[in-house]
């Protein structure tokens, strides 16, 4: 039983790490803000979710498991909101540009 749980942990955490790696590669390689956001939020949601799933069998107390789940849910909530805000400023090119930082999103090219 313990061995199975350990294997579940290893598999899930490794999968989560792969999602983070893929998300980072996408962030660096994708051409524009929207596709980069897509890569980033996928890594956050699924990668973190898998890492949390993998860590659940290892916790000693049920309260700690709740804490882990809360971390994931809060990250989902803030990730989704930030993604929505960035996408909103990126897809509305003119009216917001003067006062939002999104125009710098392309700065990492140079």
């Amino acid at each position, binding site marked *: 039983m313990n061995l199975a749980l350990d294997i579940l942990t290893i598999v899930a955490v490794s999968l989560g790490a792969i999602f983070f790696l893929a998300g980072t590669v996408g962030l660096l390689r994708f051409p524009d803000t929207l596709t980069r956001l897509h890569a980033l939020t996928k890594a956050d949601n699924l990668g973190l979710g898998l890492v949390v799933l993998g860590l659940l069998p290892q916790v000693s107390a049920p309260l700690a498991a709740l804490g882990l789940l809360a971390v994931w849910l*809060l990250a989902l*909530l*803030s990730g*989704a*909101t930030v993604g929505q805000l960035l996408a909103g400023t990126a897809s509305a090119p003119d009216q917001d540009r003067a*006062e*939002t*930082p999104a125009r*710098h999103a392309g*700065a990492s090219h140079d």
Partner: protein
Amino acid sequence: MTSALVVDAALALLVLGLALWVISTRAAYSAVVGFVAYGLLMAIVWVRLAAVDVAMTEAALGTGLTGLLLLGAAARLAPYEAAEVSSRPGRGLRMLIGLLCAAIALGLAAVVLMLPDPAPTLALLVAENLPPTGVGNPVTGVLLAHRAIDTLLESVVLIPALIGVWSVAADPAWGGRPGSLPRPQSGSALTLLAQVLPPFGILIGIHLVWNGADDPGGKFQGATVLAAMWILVLIAGLREPPAVRDQRLRVLLVIGALVFIGIGVAGIWLADAFLAYPEGYAKPLILAIEAVLTLSIALTLGLLLAGPPANDHRSGGRS
């Protein structure tokens, strides 16, 4: 041990690479983004150095709030940035400065390599003297009992800092509402986040303070989370920042330091020393100080971020 060393080496290289990016990249905005990533990696370094309390403070305050402050400043300063390049020192001078700075770094590195072995430490002394304070987290014990004078001065120093920020306001704007936060955009996803997140955030902040007695956490980490929730509500436009002439606000800002000083002075008679706690009452007194200090620090941190009073469209005008 060796695999841990490889991870540490990779972490140190990443930190150094990001630091290099922060000082060398062209746009100030990218430098600030690099600084935020740097701060998050530093938090992991603190965990590797067995300093979980420091890691929490670094992530919340050194990265979160400082990052927000600097991002806002970078966005507002972007129009002036083009003029900066012309006043960069020449190549020869830069080489000389680089050599001197490298010499300083090498000197510090030599000191690190020649640190005495076995290392001097106060940890044993703290562990021996922790039981009388009634708290289980040695860092909290040091902050509020053994080195309480440092913590007192620090919670006091936040207030002159806030006065300093306020006093750069233009004369007609004095007494009004702080104006450095971005203007709210109605109907955005931010509004939803600012309505859903704060109840949980406040709970987490209080949990951090309460837990800080026995586990990593404490009033600074908790107060930072509370301040972040307040700032979120302000940025979403659900509440206006308070006018700085508000008397109730000013009382709340200083009450933490006042209670700390009051209990400290009472210690002269009750426990024979300034900032000493009478026997058996250490823990309740520490908790009381932490509770009011958390409130004052959270307010101060939020107002430091909100900036000096400004005379803009949503200010209440002058008094």
